[in-house]
């Protein structure tokens, strides 16, 4: 039997056969993936029991009406599939503002897993962006500062700066968690940073800049610190070192952030003091 098999094998050229097989296999794999990606209707549905809620992860202040719930609704369509199970009537639930307003979008069944994870993410980040722009407008009317607004503005600034950051992980969802993590790290180190700002006077403050590179573990402990760039002021550099040492350990990585180590580059400067 063995020799027979050998015989049949020896008859045909094996190299093209093997290559061809690879290609065919690849083709099948791609076809299957594309079918799942682009023609979701052909895959089985998932049944959802119970009412569906969407919850904001970020609590943002508002003057009254937070935003148009109606805007959020059309994003998730009311799709009903024949094979869907129990149907649940849509209910709007009003709760006190402090606890966040859960939004029932509509009775729907999620057609695919992929879409389910995609759309709520889109809507929550869109909600945040809309809320932020509202708050931005409101901020223009009310120049008086308060700590919450400052935090929001910082969040805004973080989002604006996000273009500098790479994806930092897989998926759109980590974008927000990374922002929150960055904000937490920034707040922690900043709160431990002490430097006599009158020291440099008017002219010197503009140029002071120290850049530090940290290697951080998943649990927040700092493994390594190094200066990428030192300032002209030794006392400034020393104050930066102390700020980082005092902040060790940093907050742990956010859930879902899969890396075990990360590099954080921090730019210390005095630009906030130059106004006025």
């Amino acid at each position, binding site marked *: 039997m063995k020799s027979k098999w050998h015989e049949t094998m020896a008859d045909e050229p094996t190299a093209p056969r093997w290559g061809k097989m690879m290609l065919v296999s690849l083709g099948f794999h791609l076809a299957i993936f594309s079918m799942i990606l682009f023609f979701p209707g052909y895959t089985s549905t998932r049944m959802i029991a119970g009412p569906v809620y969407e919850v904001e992860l970020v609590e943002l202040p508002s003057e009254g009406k937070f935003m148009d719930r109606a805007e959020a609704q059309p994003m998730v369509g009311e799709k009903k599939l024949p094979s869907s199970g129990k149907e649940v009537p849509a209910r709007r639930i009003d709760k006190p503002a402090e606890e966040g307003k859960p939004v029932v979008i509509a009775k729907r069944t999620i057609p695919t897993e992929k879409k389910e994870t995609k759309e709520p993410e889109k809507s929550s980040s869109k909600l945040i962006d809309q809320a932020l722009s509202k708050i931005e407008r409101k901020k223009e009317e009310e120049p008086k500062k308060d700590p919450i607004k400052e935090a929001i503005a910082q969040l805004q600034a973080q989002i604006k*700066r996000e273009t*500098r*950051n790479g*994806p930092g992980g897989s998926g759109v969802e980590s974008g927000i968690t990374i922002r929150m993590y960055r904000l937490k790290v920034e707040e922690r180190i900043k709160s431990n940073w*002490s430097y006599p*700002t009158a*020291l440099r006077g008017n002219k010197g403050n503009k140029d002071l800049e120290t850049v530090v590179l940290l290697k951080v573990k998943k649990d927040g402990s700092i493994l390594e610190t190094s200066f990428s760039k030192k300032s002209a002021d030794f006392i400034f550099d020393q104050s930066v070192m102390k700020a980082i040492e005092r902040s060790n350990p940093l907050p742990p990585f956010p859930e879902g952030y899969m*890396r075990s180590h990360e590099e954080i580059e*921090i*730019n210390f400067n005095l630009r906030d003091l130059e106004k006025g």
Partner: protein
Amino acid sequence: MFSKWRLPFRGKRIAFRTGRVGLFLILFFVFPAQGLAKIYIDINAPSIRKFNVAIPDFRNLNKSGENPELAGQLAEVISRDLDLSGYFSPLDKRAFLEERGKLESPEEIRFRDWAVIGAELLVKGAYTCLGSRVEVEVRIYDVFWSRQILGKIVLGEISAYRHLMHRLSNEIILALTGYQGIFLTKLAFVSTTTGHKEIYVSDYDGENARQLTDDKSIALLPRWSPAGDRILFTSYKDGGPMLYIWEAATRSIKRISARPGLNMGGSWSPDGRRLALTLSLNENPDIFLTDLNGKIIKQVTRTWGINVSPVFSPDGKEMAFVSNRSGSPQIYILNLASGTEERLTFDGNYNTSPSWSSQNRITYTSMQGGTFDIYSIDPKEGRPRRLTEHPANDEDACFSPDGRYIAFSSNREGAYHLYLMNENGQNQRRISFIKGEQTAPSWGP
């Protein structure tokens, strides 16, 4: 079986290609794209803008506990010095935990007790009295890194304990900031304590104020010489406004200009050998250069209009002064060699009393919006910067010799008193508390 693997050449190439592609695809799907995995953060200001310093009372090492009051007094001088410097924030003593023993070595100090109350630095002192003198030892510790930064011993008269502590404060500032301290400098100013305007001299912090003149007339515009050995001032005691120099060495006062009309408000050249004065002997107040005896060397301004308040640049080649030739008092810069004059201030219609620092910055008083305020400006680039925003009057600004501080007069608390601030306008603090009103400070070395 291995015969299968002996592939012809062409087959091998295809195999490699597909193998590489396959491997790439596998890796592509298994490891998601990271790009630059770094996280970037900007921190644009510290949250704590001064070094918190804990200065507990000094330890009394005298066997029978003489001079117990020094324990608090010595610490208080250093505390005030560091506070007025604008770089430090002394912590409230009531937050301190119980003191133990004499000056401990760094290993014995429980730095955590100090870190817990937020101290960045710890100043510990001890003193021993020897007759009329006192020996003081001081140590500065970095609380976070638990180590000593500085240790000094000084010896001096108990009655001059403030001077002694100012010396220590200078050492502390030098060690912690690299800058020379100002704590042994002096102020000269006008005060109406006796009911008349007389010239007074005090420590930089307003302490130890001593009356210099006793003419029961009107004394104005005192000006320390650059070496701190003389004071030039204007007085009406002999009739009209005339110029006098008080000499520290002989404690004598000499009249140097008694010409008809105005003899006013001069300043010293940086080398201390010439004076710039305003004289109106030609009917128009103009600026003249004279020697220390009042003999005229040169007339420096010759325009119509009032030209007053001259002050030299730190290199002695230029002079800033006030002139109303444009219709309102404004500040001009004169080049002494070429004689060219250029206007410096354009905002507001009342800009006077310039003072030119060793860091090449000019401070002046301006009336914009009803009250006087202090501004600073770059002599070359213009661009005025407002330093005081109080609704009251802030005027008579004058720089410290190192240019990092400004003394000025303000009536923000009702009567005019002297204040200090950093040259960027921060940390404005009252320093004169004697009876009457204090104006026209001049800061000597």
